[in-house]
């Protein structure tokens, strides 16, 4: 049964990781504009990263 301790810590850590990933994504502005990245996709001249920052 003690194996559960490891499983529980893994599950808790994973949940924390997801939470941290959400916060990071939100901070980088990924949720601010859900539409324009799809327009940028096919524009070859416009090399932008996932968060819209230009890779200069």
């Amino acid at each position: 049964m003690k194996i559960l301790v490891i499983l529980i810590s893994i599950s808790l850590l994973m949940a924390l990781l997801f939470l941290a990933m959400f916060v990071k994504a939100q901070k980088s502005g990924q949720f601010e504009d859900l539409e324009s990245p799809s327009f940028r996709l096919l524009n070859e001249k416009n090399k932008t990263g996932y968060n819209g920052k230009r890779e200069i």
Partner: protein
Amino acid sequence: MEPTTSHSVKTKCTYCDAECDPRTIVHQNENSFCCFGCATIYDVLENNAHFDVDDSEISIEYKQYDLEEVFNRLVDFQNDKIYKIVLNAPAIHCSSCVQLLEDLPEINSQVVNTRVNFEDRSITVVASKELPLSKLAMLLDKLGYPPQFNLTRKADQEQKDKQVKLLRKVAVAGFCFGNSMMFSMPHYLGLQISGDPFFVGLFRYLNVGLSALVLAYPARDYFTTAYQAIIRKKSHIDIPIVMGVLAIWIWSLYEIFSGAGFGYLDSLAGLIFFLLIGKWYQNKVYRKISFERSIHDFLPISVRVKAGDDNGWVKVDDLVPGDTVVVKQGEVIPVNGTLGEGDARIDYSFVTGEAIPERVEVGEPVFVGGRQTSGTIELTITEKQDTTRIWSAWKTPKTESEDKTHWTTKVSMYFTPAVIVVAVASLIAWLFIDPSKAVFVFSAVLIVACPCALALSGPFTFGSIVRVLSKNKLYLKSSENVERLGNINHIVFDKTGTLTNSQSMNVAASDTGLTLAHRSMIKSLVEQSNHPLSEALSVYLADVPQTSLHDFEAYEGLGLKAISKTGSSIKVGSAEFVGVEPTSETRVYVEIDGTVLGHYTFSTAYKSGIQQTLQQLGKWFKISVISGDNDGERNTLSSLYTNFRNLLFGQRPEDKKEFIQTCHQQGDKTLMIGDGLNDQTALHRSDIGLAVADNINGFYPSADGILLSESFDKLPAMLALSKYSERVLKASLAFSVFYNLIGITFAVAGSLTPIVAAILMPLSSITVVGLVTALVSFQARKLQLI
């Protein structure tokens, strides 16, 4: 790229193949484009077109943004070399727009970087300081994306940041709720593991940790609001919430650390999670409209002053009597003055609602707020410009915050004492029945009697109604306006521009003496002029073929004259022009070879379906019309709707204001429907004021909401839906009370186990939210709004 021609009824864009919106369509050669972006990209690709802006082209509207104090307020960031600014550009509407704007650095090398936010219709531009802001704005304008500057943008940004933080809190609360629930499961389900003292301890302490996190971060705002409300001795729905939360937490900690039980910490996390979702939903803006536009967006703060041969830019405040101000075609008159030179035809529609431009003779006064419609004029300043005084008439006085307590707040006012009474009563009762359980019952009552469902019903009711209204093009400033809209019983129209159709005029012909040949002469003649009456007449004579005319002459403010190919002379114009007795109606006379053969009478055209809309509204509301115009329209209006409570004409703004006040004294709740600016005091005085407009980007300082004129016929249904909000709230209140009664019964009976709490509390929140959303969408469907 091959140009394609479409033969379908709906025109398709040559470049992006999207269906063209007739309002934004751009025709170029044989091609049609859905927007200027597509047209420009196509042009650049096909013809290597080049785009540049000449300094002399920069419009006065934009010039003022170069002034240092304004510039500093607008930019997000600046150093010696570059600046960064966010501009709103409502014209952005397709992928080509994004592509074109993000390729701006290729069009103008002084632009360092651009980035479009499609959802906000905004552009973030980083540009070199060598490129003045006015030139950047003009460049965007020329590309077809006239930018809007917003001096209050930083405040909007704060609101947005708040919402971002709120969502983060929802995420954290959700994380705690989910995990806490998982650790509580073995206990609820009576699994074998729940007998193991090690795991029981582990789960309990993990739950304590998670709950501490919930209280420290996501729930913090509830504590601050409740604390502030208590200090100010005001009732607030957060007080009973905080009371419940604290009761749960303290009791649970007591149970856990004394080893007496498991506590209700999972319910606590769930509670906060649902409450935060409600809060987030309420603040969610469905379509961002900037209501708080500055007066400077409309009235320039710097003007072009003539000094010798040179034109310099001067701030309006620095003008001295004798200065000459140059106003070009299409620009707004920035100052009061007298006309010095030029052909002034001023469109005062923004100030007075009068659509036909007024002709001003040299030496006559010209007033701020009008728009010059033909050529460049020069104004002479006669007195020191007191901008604050001029603008004060335009500015909105701050809303006197009537301390309107929402009835849900009132309920929460009674809620708290009621809960305490029940809790104390059961405490006393249990002291006699079983003293060991008395404290448990006391805290159980506090735990279960949480106004959570009540706190959620408001946000979800108003939130979903606002969503339905926005879909139908009624944009409200805030969700509280839904309730105010639902409470009105008297609709007051300002006739100008609200019941009328600004795009067209009715033409009544008295032209029996005119042959087809005559009419084609008239048609050809009026085609030569862009006067509004000529244009209306040209539309009226749309089916008439044109003929060739020569010796065309135009007499300003009077009419037009020409000679036909058969040699007969034709004159079309005012009564004065053809020499007949003028009437009070707006008429255009036709004189052929010296004889007046007929005339056309122009009258305001009402919105289509206005009669039906008024009759629908009349079933529920008193309707009044107070108009600033003369009573020429009285008969037409009376024939459209017979039951007007008041039908007043020639009303000055003060009269309108007084009228609204009289209505209020009689106990009426008024909805004022105006066109934004000229009736702003009345709009502001009324319980709720809506501006009817053709586009949402105008300047409507006092309106609580904007109704696009195309949706005017949906107004009765939308008002009915707002009225329905009260019933929805009452239904959800009933549900909330019902759940609380069940919960309190459990609690008073001393049988509120954690599992009962864990089921009952989320269930009440979810059913209330579900009920509210379902009721609203059902009603909206019934009213054919979705």
